[in-house]
């Protein structure tokens, strides 16, 4: 061995001792292992699919679905002509419908109970505590089943529906209420509503500026409510009431006409919002606790009423603490809505990863698409919440 060769040997050894090279080496190993694993799984899958004669690819999306769907919103669906793609879209709409209403309701419940949990009133405080501790420690699936199979199904039969007023019916098929069917000329009402909403923002900005300049307070809230009610009513009068009201009636089997909320939807909505609400209540409580007491005292000493103190001083600061965990609760709610499949609500998991998967046998495609959907929703919610979080964080000096 020559001297140069020995040097080289040393250099080689040293290179492997060098963490930078070692890191590269390890990463190459990891990549190779992962690649081998992916290849192995892919190979097996290909062989299995071939052997079992399972089709692959996304051609099935354009084939007619052939089965009926219980809850269809915003779309026309016929079992003969609609495709699996339509089924996917209906599933997405249904998931979004229950998630969005669930998020609103859960936030409402959560904030109410979070505030009640901090109430000085001992009884109220304890009620909130019991609600939170009981609901949080019982699996959501049990609660869903309880709502669906034990609560909603003991509501009266269709023929013995509970009437609230003349046209609001509650029975074990859900809740029915009059529907507004747009006729020609309805567009003006829609436009009026949109204009009203835009005006509300304009008024709010103007009032804010005026308050900054003159210190006078303008009743923004009541003005907004007035705008949102009055403008569409005027539009409706101009067009001569361009809609029909379709009242629920007793049909042969269940209520026909009107709009109705199915028991599956109600059970899922109630279960999701009550469950998530308990978690949100805890988040709200800790968020409010995180605002130092000095803030409240300062607000009081400035003469702000307790309501205004909460609204203008405590909550805006608490929100900064509340929003990040709140986001993950919203994400959980969306993901938990997939439990719909256990109580027969037609969400994306039940419809697309359930029925479509079964009828076509294309497990990989169906589950992949479903997962991608949930991933994108997660991404969207966290992006929105990050944006919102930034916005409220800017208040800080």
């Amino acid at each position: 061995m020559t001297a140069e060769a020995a040097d080289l040997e040393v250099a080689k050894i040293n290179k492997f001792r060098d963490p930078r090279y070692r890191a590269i080496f390890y990463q190459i190993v990891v990549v190779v292992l992962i690649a081998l694993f992916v290849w192995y799984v892919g190979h097996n899958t290909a062989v299995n699919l071939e052997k079992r004669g399972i089709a692959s690819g996304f051609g099935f999306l354009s084939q007619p679905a052939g089965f009926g769907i219980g809850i269809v919103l915003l779309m026309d669906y016929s079992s003969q002509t609609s495709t699996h793609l339509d089924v996917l879209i209906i599933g997405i709409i249904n998931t979004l419908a229950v998630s969005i209403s669930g998020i609103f309701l859960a936030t409402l419940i959560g904030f109410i109970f979070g505030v009640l949990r901090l109430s000085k009133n001992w009884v109220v405080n304890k009620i909130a505590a019991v609600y939170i501790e009981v609901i949080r420690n019982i699996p959501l699936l049990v609660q869903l089943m309880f709502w669906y199979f034990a609560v909603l199904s003991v509501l009266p039969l269709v023929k013995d529906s509970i009437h609230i007023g003349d046209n609001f019916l509650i029975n074990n098929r859900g809740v029915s209420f009059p529907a507004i069917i747009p006729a020609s000329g309805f567009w003006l009402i829609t436009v009026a509503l949109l204009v009203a909403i835009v005006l509300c923002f304009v008024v709010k900005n103007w009032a804010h500026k005026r308050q900054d300049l003159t210190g006078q307070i303008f009743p923004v809230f009541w003005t907004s409510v007035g705008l949102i009610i009055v403008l569409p009513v005027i539009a409706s009068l101009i067009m001569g009431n361009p809609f029909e009201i379709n009242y629920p009636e007793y049909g042969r089997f269940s209520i026909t006409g009107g709009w109705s909320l199915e028991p599956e939807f109600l059970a899922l909505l109630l279960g999701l919002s009550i469950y998530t609400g308990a978690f949100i209540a805890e988040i709200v409580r800790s968020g409010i606790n995180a605002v130092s007491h000095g803030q409240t005292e300062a607000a009081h000493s400035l003469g702000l009423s307790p309501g205004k103190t909460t609204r203008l001083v405590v909550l805006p600061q608490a929100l900064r603490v509340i929003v990040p965990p709140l986001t993950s609760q919203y994400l959980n709610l969306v993901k938990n809505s997939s439990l719909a499949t256990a109580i027969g609500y037609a969400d994306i998991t039940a419809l697309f990863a359930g029925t479509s998967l079964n009828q076509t046998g294309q497990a990989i495609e169906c589950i992949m698409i479903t997962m991608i959907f949930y991933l994108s929703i997660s991404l969207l919610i966290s992006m929105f919440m990050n944006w919102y979080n930034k916005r409220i964080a800017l208040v800080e000096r």
Partner: protein
Amino acid sequence: MAIVKTERHEDLPPPASQTGVIGWMRENLFSSPLNALLTVVSLYVIWWAVSGIVSYAFINANFVGETREDCTGTGACWVFIKARFGQIMYGFYPVEERWRVDIGYVLAAIGLFLVLSDVVKNKKWPAVYMFVFVPVVCYFLFYGGSFGLEVVETSQWGGLFLTLVLASVSIFVALPLGIVLALGRRSSMPIVRMLCVGFIEFVRGVPLITVLFMASVMLPLFLPEGMNFDKLIRALVGMSLFSAAYMAEVVRGGLQAIPKGQMEAAKSLGLGYWQAMGLIILPQALKIAIPSIVNTFIGLFKDTTLVLIIGLLDLLSIVKAGTTDKEWVGMATEGYVFVAAVFWVFCFGMSRYSIWLENKLHTGHKR
């Protein structure tokens, strides 16, 4: 005549309206008209709920009997739970073999006590017992097939037993996997970090049901023909991977709480990466993360009910199956209330433990 008192008058007690029960009530219940109204309404709600629950669950309920005909009261029919108790606890595990499960429970309970309580200070041997001895013994006990024990197929496992097996095996696998993922996520190697972040965020972004579906429907497609896992194993794989991702985030939280100086100090003492991690960083990080780990475990425990959807007979599904039995049809409320109560006891107990632990560890840090 002295009109001025020379000696100090003894302190009068505060007005009766400010102290004692009345004072407390004035302060806490009737401090303002709104508060008074709230109190009255709440008391009514409590009375309504408690009286309803008590009369349903106790006064009008039926405890004695064998069949549904024995349920004559208007309240709950706990006879159903009683009649099905064996199945609810053990599933279809053969009656004459159930002692094996009980022994497993006892072994695990001893281990839990040793590890979790304050009685034994040095946790080394309890940990070895709990995390090596108990799992191995329980595997042979529950599944059988050796030491003269009859094989009990996993398809016969069920009820609370299966729920506990699912939860404990998942956590047992998820914790180390989660630690590895968390370390990977904080690693300086970009590819490793990317893979770990990808895995964690992917799993956390999708519902457990889809992961379970994947494990039950797609896993057989990924394996070579003829290689085939038991349904329980498939569910366990799904649940473990799922909770590993959540565990990784919890552990990462713990790791982030450890000041950088710790690692630097360890390195300056000549410790390598694994030595530093194993001896210095992880023990501290895990200690901080314990309450969150317990919380993750509570979540995981509640999530085991989802195996109902892939057809395993856990506590919830076996009770549900019972309510559809012709003898007991219509016992849904009793069934769900019972399941809810069992889960509540477990989860509430664990959450109390986690709070207790948090306080204990907290004071430790203050000192």
